[in-house]
C-alpha cells in the first residue's frame, strides 16, 4: 500500500505558493460574498432587538469581528515577520507585508464603528480608556510597520526592520485583550469567552460569528491577492515567474474566474 505524503515545505517557496494562492482566491472570494449576505440577513432580519440598547446594538455584528480580526492579523503578521527574519524565508516576510494593510483596515473599522456605537450607548464619541487607547496604539503599530517598510528601498532590509517593530509591538495584543479586566474601563467586558457560556442571545451570537467568518474569508482572499502582487513585483526577474501567466488585465482575469 503506497502512502502519499504532502511536502508542505515546498509551499514555503514563492514558485510553489504563487499558483496555489491563485487557485484559492476565487473560492475564498465566493465564500466571503455568501457569508456576508447570510450574516446581513441573520443580523438584520432574524436577530431580535436588544431590550436595553434597541437597534443600535446591531453595530456589534461588524465591530466585534473587525476588532478580533485586527488583533489576530497583527499576531499573524508578527509571526510571519519573525519567521522571515529568523529563517531568511522571503515568502513569510512577503506574507507579513501582505497582511499589514488588511489588519490596519480592520483595526480602523473597529475604531470607527466603536465610536459610532459609543455615541448612542455612552453619549460620547471617544474616551481615553484602556481598551480604546490600546486599540488606537495597535492602529499606530500597523501604520508604523507599513511606513517603515515603505521607507526602505531594499526589500530584505525593510523586512528585517519591519519584523523588529512587529515583534516588539506584539506586547500590545494581550494588553488590548485583558484591558477590560486589568483596568476599570468604560468599554464593556467580553460577552463571549472560551471557558464560559456566552451572555448574548443565540441568534445574536450566530450573526456575529457569521460576520466573523465573512471577515476572515475576506482577509484570506485579499491577503493572498496582495501576496501574489508582491511576489510579482519582487521576483519579476525569476525564470519561474516568466513561465507563469503573470498578469492578465483585470477584466480578463475576472472572465477566467467566471468561465
Amino acid at each position, binding site marked *: 500500500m503506497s502512502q502519499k505524503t504532502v511536502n508542505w515545505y515546498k509551499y514555503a517557496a514563492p514558485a510553489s505558493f504563487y499558483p496555489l494562492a491563485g487557485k484559492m482566491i476565487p473560492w475564498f472570494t465566493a465564500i466571503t460574498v455568501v457569508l456576508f449576505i447570510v450574516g446581513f440577513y441573520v443580523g438584520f432580519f432574524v436577530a431580535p432587538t436588544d431590550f436595553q440598547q434597541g437597534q*443600535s446594538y*446591531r453595530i456589534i455584528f*461588524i465591530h466585534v469581528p473587525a476588532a478580533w480580526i485586527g488583533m489576530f492579523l497583527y499576531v499573524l503578521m508578527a509571526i510571519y515577520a519573525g519567521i522571515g527574519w529568523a529563517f531568511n524565508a522571503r515568502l513569510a516576510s512577503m506574507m507579513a507585508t501582505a497582511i499589514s494593510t488588511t489588519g490596519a483596515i480592520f483595526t480602523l473599522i473597529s475604531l470607527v464603528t466603536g465610536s459610532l456605537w459609543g455615541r448612542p450607548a455612552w453619549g460620547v464619541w471617544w474616551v481615553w480608556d484602556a481598551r480604546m487607547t490600546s486599540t488606537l496604539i495597535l492602529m499606530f503599530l500597523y501604520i508604523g510597520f507599513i511606513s517603515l517598510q515603505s521607507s526602505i528601498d531594499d526589500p530584505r532590509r525593510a523586512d528585517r526592520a519591519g519584523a523588529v517593530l512587529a515583534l516588539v509591538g506584539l506586547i500590545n495584543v494581550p494588553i488590548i485583550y485583558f484591558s477590560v479586566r486589568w483596568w476599570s474601563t468604560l468599554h464593556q467586558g467580553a460577552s463571549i469567552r472560551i471557558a464560559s457560556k456566552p451572555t448574548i442571545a443565540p441568534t445574536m451570537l450566530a450573526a456575529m460569528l457569521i460576520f466573523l467568518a465573512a471577515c476572515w474569508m475576506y482577509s484570506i482572499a485579499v491577503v493572498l491577492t496582495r501576496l501574489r502582487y508582491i511576489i510579482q513585483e519582487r521576483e519579476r526577474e525569476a525564470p519561474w515567474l516568466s513561465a507563469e501567466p*503573470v498578469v492578465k*488585465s483585470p477584466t480578463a482575469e475576472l472572465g477566467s474566474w467566471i468561465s
Partner: protein
Amino acid sequence: MGGYGLYVWGSYGVTLVLLGGEVIMLWKRKRNLANRANVADYDSRD
C-alpha cells in the same frame, strides 16, 4: 432603526467604503502590474 439609523448604517457604510477601497487599491495595483508587464513585453521585441 429606532432613531439609531445614522449610527447603524454609518457603521456598515464605513465598513463597505473601507473594504471596497481595499479591493479597488488591489485592482489598481494589478492594472499597474499589467501595464508594466505589457511595456516590458513590448520593449523585449525591439
